[in-house]
């Protein structure tokens, strides 16, 4: 069934490794990983998304493939199953694959060499490898970021999330393969999720400008606080694959900006109220 995974990549540069990280938990790393990977796949790039959250795996749920998991990342590292067996092909997008995490093991079972070998093997046949990092700054998060070429730093517009992201950005600059081997640094992108312009205007929430100013890394975009995210997560669909979702559109804008295209920034301001709603004072 998946015999064609490894044979249709032409001679070209190695796959880019993109880590989705944040430091803090619950800010939307897994949602972003799923949506971003699906977006890249829809744009025609062969993409694999790896769950590094050993022991607390969620990516398979968000991707809707939890009932098809046989082997996982740790099985591959320990030689108990092949990479081909562990990769799950997405049923909706042909270019998209998932490498799930193990739910039963400990994070310490992730060995840096093993992960390096898996990533090196995947680089031969994919265009993008998206690594969904666990929260925290422990071994799982360190392993997820170690091989990264680029990083999506996911931040909520509130101070504790910003501070944790700040810490992670510092680690991207010092604790990764690129830093240790004196290569050009990991390219960072700021992603602000759960953004609510109305609350920003009220002063309840940090503005995108504030967050951008503190973290001082290139800004990729905001994802608006949206009911469609929870609905999509619960039905196991990456939000970029749902119809009529503002969050999905925001992720697509980011994918396109990431791929070097110019897209105007949306969802940053309060939507303009119509004449009638202003007249009748409804929101």
């Amino acid at each position, binding site marked *: 069934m998946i015999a064609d995974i490894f044979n249709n990549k032409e001679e070209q540069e190695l796959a880019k490794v993109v880590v989705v990280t944040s430091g803090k938990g619950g800010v939307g790393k897994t949602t972003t990983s799923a949506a971003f990977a699906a977006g890249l796949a829809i744009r025609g790039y062969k993409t694999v998304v790896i769950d590094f959250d050993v022991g607390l795996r969620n990516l398979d749920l968000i991707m809707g493939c939890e009932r098809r998991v046989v082997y996982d990342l740790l099985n591959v590292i320990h030689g108990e199953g092949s990479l081909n067996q562990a990769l799950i092909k997405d049923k909706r997008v042909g270019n998209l694959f998932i490498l799930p995490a193990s739910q039963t093991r400990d994070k310490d079972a992730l060995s840096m060499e093993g992960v390096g070998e898996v990533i090196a093997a995947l680089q031969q046949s994919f265009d993008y490898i998206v690594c969904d990092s666990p929260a925290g700054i422990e071994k799982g998060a360190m392993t997820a970021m170690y091989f990264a070429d680029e990083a999506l730093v996911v931040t909520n517009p509130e101070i504790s999330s910003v501070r944790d992201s*700040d810490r992670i950005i510092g680690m991207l600059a010092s604790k990764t393969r690129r830093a240790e081997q004196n290569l050009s640094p990991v390219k960072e992108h700021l992603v602000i999720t759960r953004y609510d312009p109305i609350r920003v205007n009220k002063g309840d929430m940090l503005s995108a400008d504030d967050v951008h100013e503190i973290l001082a890394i290139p800004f990729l975009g905001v994802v608006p606080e949206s009911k469609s995210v929870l609905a999509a997560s619960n039905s196991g669909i990456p939000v970029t694959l749902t119809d009529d979702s503002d969050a999905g559109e925001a992720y697509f804008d980011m994918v396109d900006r990431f791929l070097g295209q110019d897209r105007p920034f949306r969802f940053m301001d309060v939507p303009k109220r119509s004449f009638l709603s202003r007249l009748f004072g409804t929101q």
Partner: protein
Amino acid sequence: MKPINLSAGTAPFELKGSVLTIIVLHIKETDANRLYPQLEKKIGQARSFFNNAPVLIDLSVVDKESQTALDFVFLVTTLRRLGLVPVGVRGVDQDQTERVLQAGIGLLPAIKTEKTVEAYADKHSAEPASPEEKKSPESSDTVTCQAPSVALTKVITQPVRSGQQVFAPQGDLVVLSSVNAGAEVLAAGNIHVYGALRGRAMAGINGDAAARIFSLQCNPELVAVAGEYMVNELLDTALINQSVMISLEDGSLKLEVIGSFTSFA
């Protein structure tokens, strides 16, 4: 690719010059009856502090005859016994070179460029030149820990992020970006932050009360100069996010808004 990457692998050693700080023992008189007892007294007290530290013997202020009178072998043995490791002599007369080498230590040329340091040393040597007036052994500065003539400034171009610590152990620290909340910057001298200071900044950590902290946008978690500190809660709210200079005045921190420009933002 490195050009010298032969099959043999990396070379087993590298020979490089390096500028470093070293303890210098400025000898001012060579009378054995005065020199050695005072050395014993002064260094013996601080034996654990020196702990086999390398030391350079400076004879620039000792005249030719006194140098002849100095027994290098005895001096070297005495210093070793006191827990120091003499590595060389500088400012020695040409006639003495043979004897210095026999004592098993190196020869260094006399210092010429450090005018200010020499003037300082001269001023000090003037004091014990009249030893009858001041008998106290503390007044004779035979052991001087000499700082490099120009303190090293550390310049950081990237933001200092949460969890990071930047330390300028000898001189000033200049940050050309922001110091974020949860970050810590320390310097022996001044700290300049050409961005927002949101973390902790400690200037004058070796006790330099003249050290100052400058920041374009001041909202620190904590600031300290020479151990006197202040947390954010105690800062005057009118100063928050202004361009501020922090100095130590009469034992307490003084914060003042600096810069004459007005922002038109």
